[in-house]
């Protein structure tokens, strides 16, 4: 508990330093290439520019936040990063590779994993099976191996099983492995989505409103777990969240989006004190 709190403090006190020009990354990530760069990213639906000139750089081990009022275009950014939408302008460089023309599956294989704002679990399947879907490209065997039940089938199945339970234990969910995912309580479904995303072995984890519908106690727990995941898996995390205690508590760099445009970028402290942000977002939040 205290150890976690220490880590917590360490995160929020990370010194953020300027990366090449406009962007910032944590000091420790300065010497490695960033995991994600977007340049003038934009998408247009009919006449509507849902996202416009979106620039973001995320360090290898950074926990970054993406905040903004409803309809600002946050989820749309995630959809562009994971190739659900093809951007109409700009480019995404992930892990040094241009993502232009890649498919959703390719994006996943390259190491982008995500959760969904409106939970998308495989409801008819068990909790463990859901995680095993995440492991699909991590622990493999062929269909012929499965049909003939060759030794490799049993070895890999066992490995998948063990790994799935290991991952579920992040949230202490091993006991629910055999429960149908659709029958889980809401909070557990959100956690399962994170576990499933982690199972794909990502380099960048995108969390879309992970704390939605959770109570303050659960949110705090989640915040600690997110920090722990970053430390244990050594990955970058970009999260969308409306709960300011979570965003301010765990995110190192924060990007604020309004009407598809970036209105501010910086550390938690800078964002908190930015009058434009307060007006566009936090002010409203306080009323609600």
């Amino acid at each position, binding site marked *: 508990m205290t150890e976690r709190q220490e880590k917590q403090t360490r995160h929020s006190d990370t010194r953020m330093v300027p990366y090449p020009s406009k962007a910032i990354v944590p000091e420790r990530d300065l010497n490695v290439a960033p995991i994600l760069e977007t340049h003038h990213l934009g998408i247009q639906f009919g006449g509507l520019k849902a996202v416009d000139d979106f620039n973001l750089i995320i360090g290898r081990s950074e926990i970054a936040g993406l905040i903004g009022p409803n309809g600002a275009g946050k989820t749309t950014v995630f959809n562009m990063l*994971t190739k*659900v939408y093809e951007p109409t302008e700009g480019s995404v460089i992930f892990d040094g590779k241009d993502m232009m023309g890649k*498919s*959703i*599956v390719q994006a*996943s*294989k390259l190491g982008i*994993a*995500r959760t*969904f704002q409106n939970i*998308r*679990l*495989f*409801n*008819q*399947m*068990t909790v463990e*099976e859901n995680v*095993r*879907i*995440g492991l*699909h*490209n991590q622990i*493999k*065997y062929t*269909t012929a191996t*499965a*049909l*003939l*039940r060759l030794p490799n*089938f049993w070895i*890999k*199945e066992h490995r*998948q099983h063990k790994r799935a339970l290991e991952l579920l234990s992040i949230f202490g969910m091993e*006991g*629910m492995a*055999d*429960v149908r995912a659709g*029958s889980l*309580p*809401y*909070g*557990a479904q959100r956690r399962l989505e994170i576990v*499933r*995303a982690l199972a*794909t072995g990502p380099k960048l984890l995108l969390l879309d409103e992970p704390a939605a519908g959770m*109570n303050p*106690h*659960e949110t705090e727990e989640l915040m600690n777990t997110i920090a722990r995941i970053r430390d244990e898996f050594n990955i970058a995390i970009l999260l969308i969240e409306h709960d300011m205690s979570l965003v301010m508590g765990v995110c190192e760099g924060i990007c604020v989006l309004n009407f598809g445009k970036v209105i501010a970028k910086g550390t938690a402290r800078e964002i908190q004190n930015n009058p434009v942000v307060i007006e566009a977002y936090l002010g409203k939040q306080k009323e609600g």
Partner: protein
Amino acid sequence: MQNNASALQESVRRRSRAFSPKARHILYKSFTFLLVTLAFVIFYDWLCEGPVSGLFAMGKISRSVKGYFVPVCAWVVAAVSLNLVVGFSGELSLGHAGFMSIGYSTGIVVYNLLTKGYGWENIYLSMAVTMLAAGLMAGIIGFLVGIPVLRLRGDYLAIVTLACAEIIKSLLQCLYVSLDTTDGVRLLFAFPKNTLTGGTALLKGPTASAPIGTKGTTTDLPALYIIGFALVILTLFVVFNLTDSRTGRAIKSTRDNRIAAESMGIPVTRHKMIAFVTAAVLAGMAGALLANKSTYQPANFNLDMSIMVLVYVVLGGLGNVLGTIFSTTALYILPEELRFMKDYRMLVYALVLIFAMVLSNNPVIKGWVTSIVSLVKRRRKSINLFAEESRNAFAAGDDAQGANAREVLVIEDAGENETAVQPEAAEPDSNQAELPEEVPAEALAAQAGGRLTLERLYTADGTPLDDETQRRIELGLMLYEAYVDSGKGKKKGKKKGGGKA
């Protein structure tokens, strides 16, 4: 406290699951194989009118009943394979008969080529090769059809599979094939008009083709039945081994949530294709098996037939192999046995079908059937065990808060309107639950979702509950959760009359 709680929860959970879902699934598969094998042995004895296996003596058999056995095998294979597409990959295919007809035509040509052309004597060997060829051909066509079809979704996919099957049917209705053995073994083809002269006609366009599975002129029914049984077993192996594997899970994930599956790195189209082609191969083999009956002609493999197989699948249950076997057998034999009704036959068949569908979709009956199937006694036992522990936990007697916590449990579930069993745990004391409302029920109910440690609870007049009571309520909720998790209390009926006045 939290630790004690989770340890207790764990112990309840462990005891309440005499059979884990995995064990239950293995039982289900073993039971399916056992049942099919047993049925085969019994019916084989019957078919041969003697205790061939030395186990059963079924007595005489009528000619018409004799005719059921092989087609039933074929239809079971067709329906189980269609279930792979509809039930497991979640795509509605209306073209299954198309793949069966390809197997049917390929089967006739290959079988006659082998037996009449090359003089193969062994029916098992010739049928095995015939079915392989039929499956291969249907698989290839299935793959070609799948390329455009599987890019579509939902209704469009269904309509295009229907169109493809109709095209296949129309083409095969114009195909003429003869076997010429005068100058070496040669196959003669004609399309779309019959220009063939000489040789033995195998495929005769729209009219009945030469049958397969014959020895001289008589059909070797027992041998065909053994082959049919082998095909059913093969199908069960393929379907079970496929669905319980990495590939099978991927197929199911594309059914449950396409976007999520893709985002997890599952190539959706490829996995739908695996299910589609596997089903086509098996359907092709089933089609070849049907070719032993001269009553089947290319024109029979139409939309009606596809729908009929789909009905077997839907009645048997999407993704339910054993159910499909039962429904197929029953629904194949029923209209045959109704022949004495003459003109009213299909009317009665339709009525029975509607009745069966309604019954099998009725949650009460469904729950009733499941409870029988999944060993009702074990369930009861575990529920009673839960009752025991919860009663102990509530320290027995008419403890006000204890009863209140139970009350809350009922409220929590009142939103669920599906019918099922009232948990027996609450039953014994339910009439004592008539107590003034002291705990903010909604707060409690809201908490029951995911957590075991509640925030401090208050009575209606604002005084906090003492530690002991709070602990009991938490314990009660926790036990209830374990109970719900163990799969029984999931959907409990509405709160019974015993609320407060």
